[in-house]
């Protein structure tokens, strides 16, 4: 039961999230929150030209949201903004149906989420915040 959702890899990401903490000199940033369960997350980016050079996050969120943010920030580093948009779209499909086109292996740890509709928002929040950050230059 829980194990379908809280897979071991996911729990590692949630207990020891990567890219967690403030980013110095971000070029783009946004806050996201899920009023329904209390997840609060902030994503900060450094975009060089058209490439996401750095991505970090802070906040207080549930295991699914934290793990999703941890994996996400790892995956998007080095991608062009267009590629990130495409990936975000494909990830949405994964959350909806449990499969998605051309997804990096690491994201598949979140494929179980689609069976738990009330947790889909948790996994999606970091990505929504990321997309919103890409459109929000700092300062």
């Amino acid at each position, binding site marked *: *039961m829980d194990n379908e959702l809280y897979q071991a890899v996911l729990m590692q990401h949630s207990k020891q999230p990567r890219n967690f903490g403030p980013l110095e000199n971000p070029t783009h940033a946004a806050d996201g929150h899920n009023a329904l*369960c*209390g*997840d609060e997350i902030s994503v900060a980016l450094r975009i060089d030209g058209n490439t996401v050079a750095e991505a970090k996050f802070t906040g*207080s*969120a549930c*295991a*699914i949201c934290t793990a999703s943010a941890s994996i996400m920030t790892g995956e998007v580093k080095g991608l062009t903004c267009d590629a990130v948009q495409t990936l975000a779209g494909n990830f949405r499909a994964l959350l909806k149906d449990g499969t998605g086109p051309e997804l990096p292996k690491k994201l598949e740890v979140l494929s179980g989420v689609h069976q*738990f509709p009330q947790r889909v928002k948790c996994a999606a929040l970091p990505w929504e915040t990321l997309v919103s950050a890409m459109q929000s230059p700092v300062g």
Partner: protein
Amino acid sequence: MASNLSEIRGQFPFLKETVNGHPLIYLDSAASSQKPARVIGRMSRFMESEYANVHRGIHLLSERATAAYENARTSVAKLLNAPREEEVVFTRGTTESVNLVANTWGRENIKPGDTILLTEMEHHSNLLPWLKLARDADANVEFVPVLENGVALDLDSARRLLAKGPKLFAFVHIPNTLGLENPAADLCAWASASGTTTFVDGAQSVGHQPVDVQEMGCDFLACSSHKMCGPSGIGALWGRHEILSAMPPWQYGGEMVDRAYYDKPATYREPPARFEAGTPPILEAAGWAEAIAFLNDTGLEAIREHSVSLANAAVQQLQKIDGLRIFGPVARQAGLVTFSIEGVHAHDVAFFANERGLALRAGHHCAQPLMRMLGSPSSSRASFYLYNQPSDVDALVAILHEAVAFFR
């Protein structure tokens, strides 16, 4: 109540449900309570043989429906020990009751520069309508502070702030977060001494313990049927007759009007009709009256004792969990416990608990400013009611231990 607990539990069909093979343990009554078979049965029978629109009918079903609807008003009036039954206005629930008063009494009485006094422990429903009113009326808002960790309302401050004579003091009788009861009678007495009108949010207290508006000395009180074994879709506003009579209508439509014209202002009926525009929650009134009869039969004092003792037992055991923080006083005054666990997010706790049959609430409990101030934007809440039993507390504790081991 301990003696007939199994009999009471036998009256609640939801207890037959299971989750992953685990019996369902419902610790979310503060959000909404479950319904006993007699309420369910009453509503079925009502729809089978007593239903019609109320008030204007001169036929059998309309008479039956009107009688049931007005008898429900009498039941609510008695439950609150209201001096007159016309003082009970049916609304959708506590939220609508607050909005009604803010938009009628509020708009007529709150003037620029006036002060509305609230507390820091209000549910959004007894906070946002007043903030909106204050903005529109150019009035000030002040808050009675909450003591460290939410153990109590700061009564010294309350007294001091009330002595300044605010126009209105709206406060929650029993907050849905802290496991405490505010001393409503004292607060109302201090308010009256300053000519302050009082509005009491009784959503969590009415139907959970004896509540007497005359003893309390308030001017308005709001409550919801769904929190006390009755159906959703109905609640009440109680208001003193002189005050209600002087209030303009809020919603306009059928039933609340006396004479209507195309080209001149209508005249309106006396309360409560004036505030019940359109077809009211008829079926719901019949169900609520049955719920009140059920609660009276069980005994409101016994229900309070039962729920509070379960909450106290929970506090005792939860305190032993490392990194678990309980909001509110150690000695519970109301049947609920809100807590946060270091390193384990409330959303995960609730999910994990549900997989084991335990229904908890996670989030801000519609009290964002309070929970933010207490440093915990998301927390878990276990709330107890007459159908809970001591072993529910044990299950809660066991599952939380497991969750800590799993997530931390």
